[in-house]
């Protein structure tokens, strides 16, 4: 998932296994009002974006995009239940007849396709189509930006340079197709697909909720240009798609509700209007000029007061047309432990920071979110447990605590102390107005409360992660945000802190505390008991905070608005997005 969040961004989809329902936390969830609408009408979406980042199922990697395309066009082997609150995090069969059957200690997974599932051209969806779709993930030079779980999980060897020996379906030279054929097999009747994994993955049936496990008909694949005209397996198909203009979906006559227990297909037509200026987009909905329109983007901060009360709840007249909810993200500052190998100083950074001022920059508690106490959000349910040991945290900064830690650091790590108070640390952040304002708060509060000097390295937003992932260019601290890919912190803790994880900005590999962390995290990945696994993720989150490998930011929120002719909107927790497929246009 890739979404800019207050100048930081991160891929990954979040999901909540759901002991704590979102509605309990926010109290603002919009219920489906008594339905006066049914099938029919045109549902319009407005966005400032010039196009979808990707329409190709293999390249979809934002919760919002997966929720949208998963509702209307692309089907997968399994999917999340279309329900409000925690019930939405339940995995249910989609193209498959069940939620998968594992064997070989969770290293082999089988899924059998339903009868009667078809592409938009009326041809049957077969195991070979799913297998071909998954194979495209390996063509990393063409099929970019998508999740690469297939590459990291399937039992396919790596070449000397670290890349997979299988290069996807397009490569013609030096491609080990046999290795892929061994890792993914189809039954004789072309109905059952088997995935052979290189390690035990107890929740692989969550992994295959990703659209990168969707079927793609080989004959219709056009590589990069498939992004413009993907073939539908869902209730709608593309009539028109033009970037910077609009997308129009019409009903897919080959789709049948009988073979799809998950999706509703209420509107007759769906239009997405791209490139609408932000203020115009908001005004079209605030004035109800487009009563059947839904904004795909967050509400502009200047318009929040029109819709919401000061405490963040929607005003009376907006109760059925607005949401203010926790999104999937946790923002944080990764401390480059390799460069700042001193836990006292890392903690001093946490206590000295003026968190309250930083939170105001992103909308305050009502719209920005709550102080995070780690990298796992409470909405993760059984993977979350409040972190202890942070009781001295004060939103405006705690100079006494910070100074005491610095005093301790003087003797435990004098070199780092000298650097912190002398030349100072380098802080990487993307070059946005908000981050620039944030930089002054960081600089002032750290100097005042702990005597630590900071220098900011502002990086072009589009280049931010390319720079900080380069260990030769990354500074001492880097802003980031993260959301789990599915309802398990297995997509948080290992991804952020194991060396082989996808987002290891804290570079903890040389920390003395890493060896124990690594063995526990790896063991927990294979833990078949979900309750035990959850408890251990929570414990590892505590472990991370004890070492202060990251300085947690906020458990963030997002705001959504729509027109008066729409109903049935609810926040789909596992996708961290509205449940687009349940929106009806009132007649």
């Amino acid at each position, binding site marked *: 998932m*890739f979404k800019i969040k207050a100048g930081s*961004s991160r*891929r990954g989809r979040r999901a909540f296994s759901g002991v704590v329902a979102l509605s309990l936390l926010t109290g603002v969830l919009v219920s489906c009002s008594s339905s006066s609408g049914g099938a029919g009408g045109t549902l319009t979406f407005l966005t400032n974006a*010039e196009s979808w980042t990707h329409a190709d199922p293999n390249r979809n*990697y934002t919760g919002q995009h997966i929720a949208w395309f998963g509702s209307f066009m692309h089907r997968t082997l399994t999917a999340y239940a279309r329900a409000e609150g925690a019930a939405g995090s339940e995995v249910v069969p989609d193209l498959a007849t069940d939620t998968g059957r594992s064997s070989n200690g969770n290293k082999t997974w089988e899924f059998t396709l339903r009868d009667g599932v078809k592409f938009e051209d009326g041809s049957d969806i077969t195991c070979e189509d799913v297998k071909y779709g998954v194979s495209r993930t390996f*063509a*990393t*030079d*063409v099929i*970019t*930006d*998508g999740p*690469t779980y297939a*590459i990291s999980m399937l039992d396919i060897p790596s*070449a000397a*340079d*670290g*890349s*997979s020996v299988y*290069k996807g*379906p*397009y*490569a*013609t030279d030096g491609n080990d197709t046999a290795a892929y054929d061994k890792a993914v097999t189809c039954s004789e009747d072309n109905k059952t697909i088997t995935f052979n994994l290189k390690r035990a993955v107890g929740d692989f049936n969550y992994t295959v909720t990703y659209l990168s496990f969707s079927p793609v008909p*080989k004959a219709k*694949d*056009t*590589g*990069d*240009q498939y*992004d*413009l005209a993907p073939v539908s397996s869902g209730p709608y198909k593309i009539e028109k798609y*033009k*970037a*910077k*203009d*609009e997308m129009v979906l019409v009903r897919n006559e080959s789709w049948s509700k009988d073979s799809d227990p998950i999706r509703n297909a209420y509107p007759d037509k769906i239009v997405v*209007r*791209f*490139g*609408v*200026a932000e*203020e*115009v987009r908001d*005004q*079209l909905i605030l*004035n109800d*000029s*487009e009563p059947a329109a839904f904004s795909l983007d967050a509400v502009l901060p200047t318009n929040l007061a029109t819709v919401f009360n000061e405490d963040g709840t929607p005003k009376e007249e907006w109760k059925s047309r607005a949401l203010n909810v926790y999104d999937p993200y946790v923002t944080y500052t990764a401390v480059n432990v390799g460069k700042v190998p001193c836990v006292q100083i890392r903690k001093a950074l946490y206590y000295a920071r003026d968190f309250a001022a930083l939170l105001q920059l992103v909308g305050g508690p009502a719209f920005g979110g709550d102080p995070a106490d780690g990298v796992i959000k409470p909405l993760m349910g059984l993977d979350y447990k409040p972190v202890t040991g942070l009781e001295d945290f004060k939103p405006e900064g705690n100079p006494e605590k910070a100074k005491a830690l610095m005093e301790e650091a003087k003797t435990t790590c004098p070199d780092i102390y000298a650097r912190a108070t002398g030349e100072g640390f380098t802080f990487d952040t993307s070059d946005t107005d908000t981050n620039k304002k944030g930089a002054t708060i960081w600089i002032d509060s750290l100097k005042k409360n702990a005597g630590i000097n900071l220098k900011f390295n502002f990086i072009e937003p*589009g*280049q931010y*992660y*390319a*720079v900080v*992932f*380069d260990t030769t*260019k990354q500074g001492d601290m880097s802003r980031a945000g993260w959301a789990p890919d599915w309802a398990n912190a297995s997509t948080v803790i290992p991804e952020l802190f194991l060396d082989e994880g*996808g*987002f*290891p900005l804290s570079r903890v590999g040389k920390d003395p505390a890493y060896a124990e962390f690594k063995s526990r995290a790896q063991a927990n990945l294979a833990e078949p008991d979900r309750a035990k696994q959850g408890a251990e993720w929570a414990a590892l989150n505590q472990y991370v905070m004890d070492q202060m490998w990251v300085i947690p930011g906020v458990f963030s929120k997002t705001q959504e608005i729509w027109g008066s002719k729409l109903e049935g909107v609810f926040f789909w927790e596992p996708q961290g997005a509205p449940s687009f497929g349940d929106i009806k246009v009132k007649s």
Partner: protein
Amino acid sequence: MINYLARRIAISIAILFAVSFAVYLIFAILPFDPAALTCGKSCNDPGIIEANRKRLGYDLPIWTQYLVFLKGLFLGRTFGEGAATIFCPAPSFGYSFQEHACVTNAILEALPVTLSLAIGALALWLILGVGLGIVAARYRGRAADTGSTIFVLIGTSLPTFLTGLLLLVFVVVKWRILPYPSGNYTPLFENPLEWLNTMILPWITLALAYAALYTRFVRNAVIETLSEDFIRTARAKGLSEKVVLRKHTLRAALAPLTTMAGLDFAGLLGGAILTEAVFNLPGLGRLSLGAVVDFDLPIIVATTILAATIVIFMNLLVDVLYAFIDPRVRVAA
């Protein structure tokens, strides 16, 4: 004249090659890794990055990459392999993975939008700017002149993105005088009314900004010309004030306007980025902006070359036109 033109064209071509190579060099020395960008915005897998570097030719020296680009201009170029093969015929500026299109096609698609915007806005601001400028000069120090000064102040103070946004919010959203355009750009020959509906506010937005400058320029030029000796001679000959203004003053005063309008028009063809962004017009400006944000090198090279070509061509055109407008230039030549 032919020799002069041939020489100018030869120099122009050399400049274009220099511009294209300079853009390549700039990207070579920037501290970014194009292979890392192809791996996805937050990709951290060195194996994937290295594989992409080889497959996309980013491991080749910058000279070789530039030569491959030049070859594509004349012979076309094939990208990818297997089912993902894409051939971009000559003149190929490359393939954009951001636009999912051959760059030449992306530009050809954006060009009519920018042309529609630039031509309409040019016509509007010339009518408005020249007309108001003449009136202000003719009635210097009177109400019309004061009115034009206020117009100039407002026009030059308002940034185009604000003018555009105000027009959109009030004319379309709040007052609903114009409908919200159904698509974001409708070609003229597909639906003239829809085209007009799409273009009228962007024209006004641009025209307001430029007309203010032209009003001031024309007013000053006309006032200056009116004080010339040959005007006094014309009046002494007994010519009417109308003839003096139309036949003698305007011809002399407006000649420099040709250069100004030519270069402004060229600048707009390079892309009216803010206006296109506010009104969501898929023209060259937005194409260029998107390319810069995404570091889409093929599009950046192509749009830079196109912008340079337009400026060079318009300069040439203005020089030639000048000879026709101003007899003194012909004599000097």
